[in-house]
Each structure stands twice: as structure tokens, then as C-alpha cells.
């Protein structure tokens, strides 16, 4: 980072400054890329090249499917192994950008006869794209401020934890490539606004198309760019450039985005996209008014203007209300609604509230993810507003809106991170520019150079430069070299602290694959717990190919990806009632659960149990969410309060509620656990995660049997028994019951099925003739 500053000295001393400048720029950027790439490799080095967590497993499975077949097969793929018995239309319900990206890399490499397994491409895709993100951020910041600030921003974004959290090697997820698409779209948009060329506008639309195909967060772009245009209109900064740029972008971008199957007609139908359409109309109205202004006289125009404004506003309002009412335009979807009305999700959608990513953000997580940048970037906003021009309006709007969204939801920290990096880079670069300059040897070469290099069109720039020039004579008696170097050293130390912090956070918080766990012994030896893969591999090898596995939705993708078995629910939580059904089965007693499992055609049940090794993310700790979600759909059968002690605590020991101690999840987690004594200090059946001795040690299963338990008991799989061959009669109306009628010898006529005129056989006598003749007549 110090390179950016020292380049001024080098430039003065050498004859070919331009060459040195690009060399330094190139060196810094490539170093940023390398640093960004390598700091994301902690997980690969510590464990192995493996796909992480939950969602990446689905992405990997989809990519694998696409590589194994072809693109069109992938788009038409109906996955019958998910959401049994409903299935899932994968092609129409995913953003295919991620799969297409890694698929095409794989295709190109295989064309070049470089055999790489698709898994390795998937694992290393996010780190590779982090390098591209650094480049895009450099160009973006360069357009906004100076190349020096761009270099700072590239370095920041390469190592900042807020972005690393979603892009470590192995976390093969949409966000990894989407942040690159986001920054690149913004760079192209700024370029389009500056030049007013259709070329750049069309490129913006293309990049936007890539973003739409990659991540649902594209809605942020399609709202932020219209907001930018709208604010520029309000500020009276309307120009032909903006008109051309926005129209090109909006028309092309909308048409292109509709080509993604998952998006379809949403850009025309949903409220999230209406702002863009509204600004599109407004821009045309404004341009038209400008044209009319040239024709009419001033007083005429005033009336016309008022009339037009009122009419247009009324028309638009009526149209939107009417269309929403008629159902053509869909109202906001729940996830977006929860961004505005912050209490909404908590009350209405437990499935959204249950995901930890959707929680609001504490100041600690801001500081944890962005460190010094979060404190410094407001200064960047300050400088941008003080020296405002068209494109700086954009970054200010970006900062203010993204900071709001990041405050509402932890996962949206990701969209805030690039803009924080850019703005903090501006603040730092401005400071370094002042304090790294040598007052005594000032030459005019540099200044002329700058003027030649930067073709600013805006009015602010010349004014600013003039002021600096006025100040120059005073600079001679400026701050002085000693103080300047103190300031520089101090700031550099803080930046070094930032780099150290980033590495520490990446290594400690964001580099766990969560498929493979590691525990450390007292002497520092590492113990790998590979129970998840053990269990999934067992499923793959030992169960029927069509077997249905029931588990909580968190593990759906992993079972499908690693175990290759059919699941009932998975991390694509589109069907709440189905999830509630599974939750109900887990929280009912065994008999009731067996009925549900028969209905759902379940063969195996898989639970995660951390009591042996003290793993806190297990199913018992998630259990209350299962109960809550089940209660939301089946309030008559499941009541959350039944699972608490009278004191309102959730306890698994002997004072826990009876309902909890006999529900399926409890039984499956603790089956035979009461016999296990982990060490001599604790009683048998001591749960290390909850730190208690379990309350129900004598668990008997009637309808299920244990099929497999992994080495550390982390995953337990149970087989659902078939209906037993003969059911003992318990109901009064079943056929198997003994007949009620009792026989007695005396009233043998009342025997069931007896003949009315059955001949009485008396031993030793012949039957009478009377009966014989009668029977003949008949």
C-alpha cells in the first residue's frame, strides 16, 4: 500500500514516469489478487479441497449434473430426489450463472487438454473471482476519485473479512461471483454516466445480465441505479448523458434479465422492479418538458408544467394502485417486506426468522467484518459530498442505502462491504496524498500531468484544482517533514493492524468447512472429526437407491449431494407446510410420528447429535425452531409451551417436560445414550453440549430401529420399520376379533350358517322320509 504513495517520488526522479506508474499499478493489483487468493485458502490447506457447508453442495450437485449432461438438460432438469414426493424443477428455480461460469471454465480447460475435476474448479472459483472483484473495484474507484484511491480500494476488498466470509475456497455460492458482477456493473454504469455513450450503457446492461443470472441480489442494482438517476434529476443535474445511459441500460437490461428462467416476467410484474420503470417514465417526461420549455414562453410553460406534473403524478399513482389491485403487479415478497417493516418476519415468517443470516446486525459484527474501514468510511462520504459530482452522488446513495440494509440483515453486510472499501480508500488516499508529498521539491510537472491524464468533464474539478494552486505558496511553510512522517507511520500502523486483523478473522472465523470438524487436544494435536461424510457415505453404500431420508432441512442438500439419496425437505425452503410436516413428525411422540412417516413414505431418519463431542449446532439445539414451525401450521397438535418446564426453560434433563422427553427427536438423539459413560467424572448419559445428565435414559423404540451411528455419534441414522406382518387387534370392529355369538348346544338352531331344516341325525336311526321328500321337491 505504501507503493501508491512512493510512486510520486519515483515519478519525479525518472524520465519515463508513465511507464513506472503502470508498472507500480500493475504490481500492486497483482499482489492484491495474489493476497486475496491465498488468504482464502486456509480451509484447503488445513483440511482438503472440499465443498463447504450446505448451499454450496446443491450448487455443486447442479454443476456436476450440468457438466455430466448439457446446458439444456440442466435447464429442463426435474430433480425427483428433492422435496419427496413433490420434486423440484431445478432449471426454473435456480440462478444458473454460477453453474454456467464454472461449467464453461471446465469446458475451456478440457478443450485445452487440461484435465481438471469439476470439483476443484468449484472449490477455487470464489477465490479466483475475488481477484476479479479487486480489479473491478480498482476501476470503479479510479472513475470516482483517483487511481491511488483505486489501488487502496483494491487492496482493501482483497482481504476484507466482510467479503471473505462468503468467498473462501470451497464456499461455492452465488455471492462469490455476484460481488464481482455487482462492482463491475457499477463501474460500467459510472463510465456510462460519465461518457454518455450507448456503448458503455450496453455493456452495463450485459454485466447486469450476468448479475441477474448469478444472484437474487440484482434487485439492489435495479433499484440503486434508478435512485441515482432520480436524485440527479432532483439535483438539477439532468443531462443527455444520463438520458442515454439510463435508457440504454434499462431497456437492454430488462430484456436481458427476462431471459433468465427463474426471473421470467418479474421485471415487469413485481413491485421490486417498479421503481426502475417509474424512473424510466419520469426521465422521458423530464426530457419532454425540457423540449417543450424551448418552444413555449415562460408563463405558458409554468402553467403547462404544473398541469403536467399533477396529471403525471396522478396517472402513475392510479396506474400502480390499479395494477396492484388487479393482481397484475405482485406486492412485495416476504423477504423484501421484512427489510422495510423490521418486525414483520419475527411475527409472520418463522422460517425466515429462524435463519441466523437474517438477524439484525450488532455493532460488533460491523467492526468484526470491516475493522478500521467502518470508522473511516464516513470520512470518505464526507469528502465525496463536499466535492460532489454526478458519479459521487452514486457512491453516497450506495453507502446510505447499503448501510441501512446491512443494519437490518447480517447477510447484506456483503453488499455494504465493497462500498465501505471504496469510501475508506478515498479517505485514506486523500490523507496519504497530502502527507506523503514532499513540500520542498515541488514541481509543476506532476500537476500538468494530472490535468492531462484526467479528462474531467465536471465543474467541480477545475475549481478544486484552482484552490489547491492558490494554497501552494503557503504550503512551503507547511506542516513539516517530521510531523508528516509521524502521521504517515501512525496511519500505516493502523492499516497493518487491519491486515493482521483480516488474516486472524479469516483464519479463525471463516475458514471452517463445517463438513469436517477439527478438535484440538491439550498438547495441540489436531483431531479430525469426519462423521458427516462417514454417515453420508454409509447412506450411499448401504441403502436402496430410491430410499427416502427424513432429516431437518439444514441437511437436505448434503444428503442429496454426498449421500445421493432422496430427501423430504432441503435448504431451498420453498414449501413451508412440507417443512412443518417434518417438524411435526420430529416433535410428536413415536406413534404419531410413525403415522406421519408412513404418510410421507420415509425409509430412514437422520439426526445430528452433538452430545458426545459437545457440538453445539445439533438438532436438539435447533429443536425449538422445528416446534415453532410445526406449530405455525398445526397449532392444534403441537404447542411450543408443552416443550418447556413450568419455569419456562428448555431442559433435556429429568426436570424437562414430559412431551419433550418422549418426542421423536429426543428419542432418536438419545437412544442408547444412557448406557454411555464418557469419562469417570460424569454419570452415564451426560450430554456435553447441554452440560446435563439426560432425563430419559431408558428409551425404547417400537417403530424405528437404529441403522447406523457414526464414530463420534454426530450423525445417527434410523431405519423406519415396515408395518409388522400381523397387527394385534385392538379395535372392536376389526374382522380378526372373535365372534360375539356364543354357541350353546341347546339352541343349536341359532348357530351361524346353520340350515333351517337340517335333518336331525340321531345316532342309530335312519333319517325320516318326510324330510327326504321335501328336499326332493325343492
Amino acid at each position, binding site marked *: 500500500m505504501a507503493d501508491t504513495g512512493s510512486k510520486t517520488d519515483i515519478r519525479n526522479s525518472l524520465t519515463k514516469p508513465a511507464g513506472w506508474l503502470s508498472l507500480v499499478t500493475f504490481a500492486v493489483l497483482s499482489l492484491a489478487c495474489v493476497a486475496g487468493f491465498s488468504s482464502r485458502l486456509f480451509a484447503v490447506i488445513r483440511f482438503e479441497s472440499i465443498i463447504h457447508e450446505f448451499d454450496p453442495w446443491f450448487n455443486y450437485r447442479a454443476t456436476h449434473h450440468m457438466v455430466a449432461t448439457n446446458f439444456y438438460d440442466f435447464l429442463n432438469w426435474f430433480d425427483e430426489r428433492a422435496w419427496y414426493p413433490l420434486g423440484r424443477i431445478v432449471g426454473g428455480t435456480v440462478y444458473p450463472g454460477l453453474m454456467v461460469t464454472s461449467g464453461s471454465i471446465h469446458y475451456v480447460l478440457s478443450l485445452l487438454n487440461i484435465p481438471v475435476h469439476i470439483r476443484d474448479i468449484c472449490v477455487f472459483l470464489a477465490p479466483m473471482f475475488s481477484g476479479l472483484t479487486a480489479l473491478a473495484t480498482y476501476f470503479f474507484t479510479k472513475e470516482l476519485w483517483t487511481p491511488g484511491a483505486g489501488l487502496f480500494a483494491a487492496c482493501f476488498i482483497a482481504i476484507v473479512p466482510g467479503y471473505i466470509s462468503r468467498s473462501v475456497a470451497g464456499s461455492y455460492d452465488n455471492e462469490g461471483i455476484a460481488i464481482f458482477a455487482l462492482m463491475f456493473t457499477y463501474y460500467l454504469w459510472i463510465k456510462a454516466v460519465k461518457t454518455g455513450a450507448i456503448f458503455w450503457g450496453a455493456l452495463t446492461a450485459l454485466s447486469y445480465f450476468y448479475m441477474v443470472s448469478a444472484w437474487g441480489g440484482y434487485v439492489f442494482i435495479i433499484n440503486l441505479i434508478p435512485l441515482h438517476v432520480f436524485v440527479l434529476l432532483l439535483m438539477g443535474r439532468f443531462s443527455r448523458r444520463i438520458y442515454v445511459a439510463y435508457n440504454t441500460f434499462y431497456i437492454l437490461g430488462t430484456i436481458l434479465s427476462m431471459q433468465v428462467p427463474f426471473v421470467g416476467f418479474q421485471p415487469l410484474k413485481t413491485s421490486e422492479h417498479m421503481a426502475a420503470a417509474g424512473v424510466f417514465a419520469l426521465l422521458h417526461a423530464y426530457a419532454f418538458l425540457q423540449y417543450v420549455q424551448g418552444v413555449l414562453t415562460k408563463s405558458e410553460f409554468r402553467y403547462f408544467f404544473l398541469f403536467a406534473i399533477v396529471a403525471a403524478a396522478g396517472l402513475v399513482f392510479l396506474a400502480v394502485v390499479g395494477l396492484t389491485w388487479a393482481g397484475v403487479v405482485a406486492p412485495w415478497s416476504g423477504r423484501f417486506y421484512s427489510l422495510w417493516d*423490521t*418486525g414483520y418476519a*419475527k411475527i409472520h415468517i418463522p422460517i425466515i426468522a429462524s435463519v441466523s443470516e437474517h438477524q*439484525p*446486525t*450488532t*455493532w*460488533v459484527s*460491523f*467492526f*468484526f467484518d470491516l475493522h*478500521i474501514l*467502518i*470508522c*473511516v*468510511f*464516513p*470520512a470518505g*462520504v*464526507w*469528502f465525496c*459530498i*463536499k466535492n*460532489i459530482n454526478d458519479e459521487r452522488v452514486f457512491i*453516497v446513495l450506495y*453507502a*446510505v442505502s447499503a*448501510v*441501512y440494509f*446491512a*443494519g*437490518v440483515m447480517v447477510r447484506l453486510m456483503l453488499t455494504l462491504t465493497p462500498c465501505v472499501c471504496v469510501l475508506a480508500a478515498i*479517505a485514506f488516499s*486523500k*490523507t496519504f496524498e*497530502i*502527507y506523503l508529498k514532499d513540500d520542498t521539491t515541488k514541481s509543476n510537472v506532476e500537476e500538468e500531468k494530472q490535468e492531462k491524464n484526467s479528462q474531467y468533464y465536471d465543474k467541480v474539478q477545475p475549481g478544486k484544482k484552482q*484552490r489547491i494552486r492558490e*494554497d501552494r505558496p*503557503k*504550503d512551503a*511553510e*507547511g*506542516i*513539516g517533514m517530521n*510531523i508528516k512522517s*509521524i*502521521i504517515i507511520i*501512525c*496511519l500505516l*500502523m*493502523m492499516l497493518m*493492524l487491519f491486515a*493482521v*486483523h483480516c488474516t*486472524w478473522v479469516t483464519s479463525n472465523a471463516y475458514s471452517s468447512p463445517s463438513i469436517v470438524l477439527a478438535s484440538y487436544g491439550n498438547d495441540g494435536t489436531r483431531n479430525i472429526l469426519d462423521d458427516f461424510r462417514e454417515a453420508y457415505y454409509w447412506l450411499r453404500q448401504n441403502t436402496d437407491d430410491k430410499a427416502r431420508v427424513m432429516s431437518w432441512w439444514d441437511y437436505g442438500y448434503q444428503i442429496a449431494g454426498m449421500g445421493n439419496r432422496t430427501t423430504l425437505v432441503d435448504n431451498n425452503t420453498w414449501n413451508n407446510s412440507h417443512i412443518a410436516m417434518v417438524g411435526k413428525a420430529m416433535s410428536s411422540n413415536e406413534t404419531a410420528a410413525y403415522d406421519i412417516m408412513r404418510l410421507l413414505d420415509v425409509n430412514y431418519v437422520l439426526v445430528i447429535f452433538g452430545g458426545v463431542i459437545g457440538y453445539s449446532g445439533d438438532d436438539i439445539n435447533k429443536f425449538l425452531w422445528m416446534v415453532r414451525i410445526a406449530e405455525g401450521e398445526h397449532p392444534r397438535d403441537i404447542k411450543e*409451551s408443552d416443550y*418447556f418446564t*413450568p419455569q*419456562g426453560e428448555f431442559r433435556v434433563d429429568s426436570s424437562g417436560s414430559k412431551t419433550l422427553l418422549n418426542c421423536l427427536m429426543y428419542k432418536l438423539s438419545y437412544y442408547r445414550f444412557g448406557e454411555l459413560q464418557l469419562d469417570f467424572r460424569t454419570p452415564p448419559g451426560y450430554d456435553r453440549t447441554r452440560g446435563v445428565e439426560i432425563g430419559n435414559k431408558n428409551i425404547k423404540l417400537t417403530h424405528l430401529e437404529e441403522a447406523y451411528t457414526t464414530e463420534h455419534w454426530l450423525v445417527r441414522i434410523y431405519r423406519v420399520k415396515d408395518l409388522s406382518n400381523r397387527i394385534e387387534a385392538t379395535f372392536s370392529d376389526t374382522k380378526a376379533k372373535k365372534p360375539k355369538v356364543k354357541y350353546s348346544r341347546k339352541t343349536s338352531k341359532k348357530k351361524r350358517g346353520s340350515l333351517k331344516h337340517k335333518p336331525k341325525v340321531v345316532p342309530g336311526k335312519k333319517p325320516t322320509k318326510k324330510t327326504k321328500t321335501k328336499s326332493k321337491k325343492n
Partner: protein
Amino acid sequence: MDVAKKLCFSLLLVVLLVHYGNSTTKKKETTMGDRVSQLMDWSSRKSVIRLNGDKFRMYLKSTPRNYSVVLMLTALQPQRQCAVCKQANDEFTIIANSWRYSNQFSNKLFFAMVDFDEGQDVFSSLKLNSAPVFIHFPAKGKPKKGDTMDIHRVGFAAEQLSKFIAERTDIQIRIFRPPNYSGTLALVLLFSLIAGLLYLKRNNLEFLYNKTSWAIAALSIIFAMTSGQMWNHIRGPPFMHKNQQGQVAYIHGSSQGQFIVETYIVIILNAAICVGMVLLNEAQHMKADAGKKRIMALIGLGTVAFFFSLLLSVFRSKYQGYPYSFLIK
């Protein structure tokens, strides 16, 4: 207006209480029919019936009854300093009013309350030492275990109260909240204020072009969000924590939570660092002699370094096992 209304009501209530208090104590033995009609009479005047110790015993303890009573035990006097009681009382009033003005209003269910200062004996007889408590007195027998509402878990929102009542008595009460216009009103007021200001100053709209005010507005949004005000808004943490020894904790011990006062501290720290950064830059452009510039630059640097290290140490105290610090441990 609302306050005046409440005042009126409470005055009326006091008068009524005095009146009826005299009349009821005179006849000790009342039949069930009398009691029901008495309760009906009260609840038609005021949806929540205020009880004292005597009335509590007469109407809720005596048998036989054929009506359920949902009783709130609370402490509303200002010297009791029970902020929760006030909110609970509001919610309770909402559900009582919803019941009072619903078309299924009958003599099967009554809403009553006992204030601690009016009926300490009630609290002692029920062995309660906290407020607010919601207890349902069923038509037959004494309140059982499930008849005390678990407000720690479900809270005391009117909807939850309604759910609780439906569970205990099979009476479904549809909550009708008096629409809250205060938010809308504030917005309208704000907009009209802005519009009025713009209209008054229509000849001199220069202030709209004042970058400093816009910058301050943007920065205040940013500071509010980065300090976790949204988290406060959604989770509603306490202002600060006071433990048994009377020590006050301003900083929450874990990284998962925060107190309101803590977020204010963070706002100040963030803002100070930002100001320091701006000072560092403005020092150069100041029209002053070199000495002043130097002092200003050093002040800027000092602010940035000091407050940043302070922020880092606060973070360190919250995040267990964080190894780094700067200047201050």
C-alpha cells in the same frame, strides 16, 4: 386529548369506586346473581374492573361462580417504577376493550385488575412478589398451574393474551387495536413542516445546496446504522445493566448482544474517528500559519489513534480471545 380522556376516565372511576365500594361492603352476603349483575354493571362502564382486597375475595374467591375472570396484578403507581406494568396495562386495556365492544360480549368473562398499592393482601394471598402477572380465574374451582400466563416466554401482547384466554376459556376474542395514527401524523407533520419551511424560504433556497448539512444528514444515518441502532429497534435491549451489587455495566459482556448506552458510546467513538480523519485533511487547506496547521494535524491524528484504540479495546473486551490491541490494552 388522549391524556385528558384518561384523566376523565380515572376521575370517573375514582368516583365510581368510592360509590360502589360503600354500597358493596354493606351487604356482605350477596347471591351469585347479584354479583354477576354487579360485575356486568361495572364492566359496561369500564372494560377493566378495578378491584381491591375485599372485592377480590368477594368476586373471585367466593363460590359458586359461573363466570371466568382474567385478573391482572400490577403496580401502576409512579413510585413503584414499573415501566413494564404500564405497557402491560395498555395491552390489557386493548383486549378488554375488544371484548367489551365485541358482539359476543357476555357475562361469561370479565377483565379485572388489582393494583399493588390498593390490594397488597391480594398479592400476599396469591404468594406473588412480582408484577405484572396475568391469572385466569376459571368458572369452576381455583386457578391451576396453567392459569397463570407465562409472560416471560410469550410476552404480554394483546394477541398473546387473546390466545391464552382462548386456550383457557374457549372464548375467541378478536383484537381490535385502536389504529395508531401517531406515526402517520408525525410523518405528515414533518412533511408539512418541510413544505412550510420551503415555502417560507422560497426566495432563498440556497440552504438546499448546502453540502455540509446534507453530509451531516448522510453521516448520521451511517453512524446510526453502523452502531447497531436497528438491532436495538428490533430486539429492544435494556438501556444498561445493573447487577445485584449495584454495579452498572455499560458494555454487554458477549459479542452477541449490546446495550443501548453501548451503541451511543460506539456512535461517539465512530464519529470522533471520522472527525479526526477530516481534521487531518482540512489541516492542509486551512488558511492559517504553519504552527496552527501542525497542531491541527496532530490533533486529528491523536483523535483518530486514540479513539480507534479505545474502540478496539471495547471490541476486545466483548470478543473473547481476540488477540490484538492498539495503544490501549
